[in-house]
């Protein structure tokens, strides 16, 4: 609304200015029809506009003038001096009122009626022109403003940027030349002037944040009406100024946040009444400046974000491991709202789905060098705080070089800068990829030179590593030849043909006037293939939580199997490596077994007992039982971040991973122990849970949970006996027998008369399973 008013004021003032000539002419020649028409059009327009804004005084005045002038136009009245004076007095008053609107002053209103009466030809108002001639109060604020085209401003900005560059050039020349105090003093003055001009021009790019807030009341009203909620909007700090472009960049994220708050945050009046809150929710949007940052806060007093619900979803989606979940603070749980593809809303509504898009909101804010924080108290409300730099065009950046060419990196994305050859850094080549280990933290390494397809001039050990945390992505290290300087850079968008590379965020100019490309950290990650794209994300959703974190590593024992294949098994599972005599291996009781250390262990990894010689075995343990695995030779022990391509069917081999450029088959210890279960020498009775085969959800999500509860997992095949049998409610087939059957459904809605439990109903599952565990333990 404020913006419209400002337009109205500016337009009216422009018209008044244009009209001033006509007024003078009309005053001299009241019969001049053309001038009369011009003035009539003016009052008519003002009157029309006033109707919009609820400005009764202006409307009354312009209406009266319009009426009088219409009479003259129709020939019903002659434009005598008195009428001309009266009309001019009204027009002057309109000017005063419009100015007052802008400055927020009051104009005495008591003589409005006199002015109107004068128009009507009432002789009582004869004295009006004299009254108007009275000197204006000195205190009136002078309004000095003009409207400029943005093009002109941009040209001025460019001119100033040129001047800054020229100054820098001159400064360099002066440093090289013999010292001359007089010249230096003059130069200092020029420098100071240019800095001041630059400052002023920068300020012309500023706009009141009002223009961002002005759309909110209507949006809030419409949304609330649509959703049947009552929302009171409080906007504050509209006079904070922000870079024009910045305002445009914030518009969408802010809209999204406000929509979310109304849709999901603020409850229906009935719910609010039940929670003994005022019926109408309050949404507070405020802006303020803090240093060289602008804070925009959106706070509601709704139900808040349920951090635990978010965490459950994140766990279920495999985005957070159990270990991480345990360590999470309430704030971290709430911040999960920014994770891609998480939504606490059970159903995504037409308005928004909280979470769906919050990751986009954050990415958008971070793209302009901002930060967004969320703070939530359950049932008390959510406070979202956006912090953005004052201006979009000046970005603090670090300049780096590779192959002699300088690039800039936005400082907001930089975590740390290290020497590649430093003591805290280790770089391993894993297949074709490189992994940097920095103080036990493993991050993918991207060589900028290789990515750009240029030569590097430095050895890897002499290079610098820049740890980057792109918006919405994972940390990675960027190897560059050199790190130069922190600079404040004026960044401009690059041409589409350059942006097509996907690596750049824009261009800027160095002090010497040469162009520099600003790297886009998330674009670099994407080009290097280390970011999560959609399909990877989907895979992460299906993969067990432990593997969802791409950079998480396992220490593996690499060995050559008897078949010659290169295989790996987690070192943690290997109890010891032993050589046994061939005679110790026997096919007995339907299985290959090996006698070792006075015990008989089931033997896997070989088809038949070796004829002669020795057999080397791995003694694997799951903490309870043991089994032996025959193999040929140990290759190495490596700690690697595993990216396992799963095998088509469950079996001895879980899948294949790339380690040191070799295809390595990773053993599936679960399968091994499950397959040899009946023969595994168990030290104590464990409850047994039979799990249907081939259900990825059961294998990957449920299984770790069951195991953590102390269950031994067996495949639910014909004739398998178990303490508890898990069945899918959708595909129930009772082939295994069990003391208890737990039916799990994949849809939240219960089917009729069903006793099944929803798969993400953790509490329900846990209670059913712990009953089973106790029973199983008691039976055993």
């Amino acid at each position, binding site marked *: 609304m404020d913006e419209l008013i400002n337009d109205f004021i500016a337009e009216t003032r422009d018209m008044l200015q244009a009209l001033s000539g006509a007024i003078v002419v009309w005053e001299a020649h009241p019969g001049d029809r053309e001038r009369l028409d011009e003035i009539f059009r003016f009052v008519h327009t003002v009157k029309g506009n006033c109707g919009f804004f609820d400005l009764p005084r202006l409307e009354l005045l312009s209406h009266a003038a319009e009426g009088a002038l219409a009479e003259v136009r129709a020939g019903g009245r002659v434009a005598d001096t008195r009428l001309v004076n009266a009309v001019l007095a009204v027009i002057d008053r309109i000017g005063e009122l419009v100015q007052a609107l802008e400055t927020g002053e009051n104009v005495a209103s008591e003589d409005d009626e006199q002015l109107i009466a004068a128009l009507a030809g009432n002789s009582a108002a004869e004295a009006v022109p004299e009254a108007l001639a009275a000197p204006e109060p000195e205190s009136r604020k002078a309004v000095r403003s003009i409207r400029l085209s943005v093009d002109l401003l941009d040209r001025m900005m*460019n001119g100033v*940027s*040129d001047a*800054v*560059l020229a100054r820098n050039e001159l400064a360099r020349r002066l440093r090289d030349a013999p010292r001359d105090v007089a010249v230096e003093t003059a130069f200092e003055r020029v420098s100071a002037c240019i800095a001041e001009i630059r400052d002023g021009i920068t300020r012309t790019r500023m706009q009141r944040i009002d223009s961002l807030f002005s759309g909110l009341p209507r949006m809030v009203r419409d949304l609330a009406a649509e959703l049947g909620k009552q929302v009171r909007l409080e906007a504050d700090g509209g006079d904070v100024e922000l870079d024009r472009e910045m305002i445009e960049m914030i518009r969408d994220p802010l809209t999204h946040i406000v929509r979310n708050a109304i849709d999901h945050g603020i409850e229906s009046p009935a719910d609010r009444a039940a929670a003994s809150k005022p019926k109408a929710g309050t949404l507070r949007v405020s802006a303020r400046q803090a240093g060289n940052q602008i804070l925009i806060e959106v706070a509601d007093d709704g139900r808040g974000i349920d951090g635990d619900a978010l965490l459950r979803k994140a766990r279920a989606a495999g985005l957070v491991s159990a270990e991480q979940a345990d360590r999470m603070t309430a704030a971290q749980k709430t911040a999960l709202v920014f994770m891609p593809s998480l939504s606490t809303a059970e159903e995504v509504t037409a308005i928004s789905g909280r979470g769906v898009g919050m990751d986009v909101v954050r990415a958008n804010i971070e793209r302009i060098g901002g930060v967004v924080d969320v703070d939530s108290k359950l049932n008390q409300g959510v406070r979202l705080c956006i912090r953005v730099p004052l201006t979009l065009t000046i970005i603090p950046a670090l300049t780096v070089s590779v192959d002699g*060419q300088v690039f800039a990196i936005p400082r907001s994305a930089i975590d740390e800068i290290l020497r590649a050859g430093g003591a805290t850094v280790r770089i391993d080549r894993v297949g074709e990829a490189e992994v940097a280990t920095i103080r036990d933290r493993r991050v993918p390494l991207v060589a900028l030179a290789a*990515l*750009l*397809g*240029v030569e590097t001039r430095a050895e890897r050990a002499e290079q610098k590593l820049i740890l980057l945390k792109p918006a919405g992505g994972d940390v990675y290290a960027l190897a560059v030849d050199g790190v130069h300087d922190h600079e404040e850079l004026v960044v*401009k*968008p*690059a*041409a*589409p*043909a*350059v942006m*097509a*590379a*996907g*690596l*750049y965020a824009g*261009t*800027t*100019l160095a002090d010497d*006037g*040469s*162009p*520099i*490309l600003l790297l886009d950290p998330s674009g670099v990650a994407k*080009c290097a293939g280390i970011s999560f794209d959609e399909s990877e994300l989907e895979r992460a959703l299906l993969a067990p939580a432990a593997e969802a974190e791409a950079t998480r590593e396992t220490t593996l024992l690499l060995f050559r199997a008897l078949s010659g294949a290169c295989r790996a098994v987690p070192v943690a599972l290997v109890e010891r490596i032993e050589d046994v005599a061939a005679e110790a291996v026997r096919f007995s009781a339907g299985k290959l077994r090996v006698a070792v250390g006075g015990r008989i262990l089931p033997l896997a990894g070989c088809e038949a007992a070796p004829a002669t010689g020795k057999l080397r075995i791995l003694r694997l343990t799951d903490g309870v039982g043991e089994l032996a695995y025959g193999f040929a030779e140990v290759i190495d022990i490596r700690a690697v971040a595993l990216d396992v391509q799963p095998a088509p069917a469950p079996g001895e081999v879980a899948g294949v991973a790339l380690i040191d450029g070799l295809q390595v088959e990773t053993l599936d210890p679960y399968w091994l122990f499950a397959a040899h279960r009946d023969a595994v020498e168990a030290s104590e009775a464990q409850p047994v849970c039979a799990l249907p085969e081939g259900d990825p959800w059961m294998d990957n999500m449920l299984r770790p949970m069951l195991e953590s509860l102390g269950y031994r997992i067996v495949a639910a095949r014909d004739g398998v006996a178990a303490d508890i049998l898990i069945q899918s409610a959708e595909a129930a087939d009772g082939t295994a027998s069990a003391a208890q059957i737990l039916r799990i459904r994949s849809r939240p809605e219960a089917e009729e008369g069903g006793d099944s439990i929803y798969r993400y109903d953790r509490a329900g599952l846990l209670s059913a399973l712990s009953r089973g565990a106790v029973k199983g333990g008691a039976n055993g």
Partner: protein
Amino acid sequence: MAELLLIARLAGRRIAFPASMVEAVVELEGLTPAPRAAAHVAGLSALRSRVLTVIDGLASLEFGRSGEGGLREAIVVPWDGHNYALMVDEVEDVVEAVAPPTPIKAPLGAGWDRVAIGMVEAGGGLILLVDPHLLIAGPAAHAA
């Protein structure tokens, strides 16, 4: 008023650009490569405080790439909010068109067909009139 034409040489041919689309003719100082940008982008250069995206005219026609080094003459073409420098072999002259451009009935050969507006009688001969925006857009934009 007859249209003003900027006559230049590109890939050994004389061509004309509508002068109204050209802001300036410059000699490029320094060229910053833009790795992995579109193939017809030679790099970036600066004109005072403005960044110019330098387009290799030869590459845009898919005739190869311009050689390294030497003075590079380029025409500055502002388009869609960005400033482009279109590298040509040589800028010859600015002349008035004798007559409006006429369509060409014969195939011009690969590359030229994509960027031609028509042919125009100017400077004592018939010259191919080229749309600098199409040269800037490059071969990929056409394919899309």
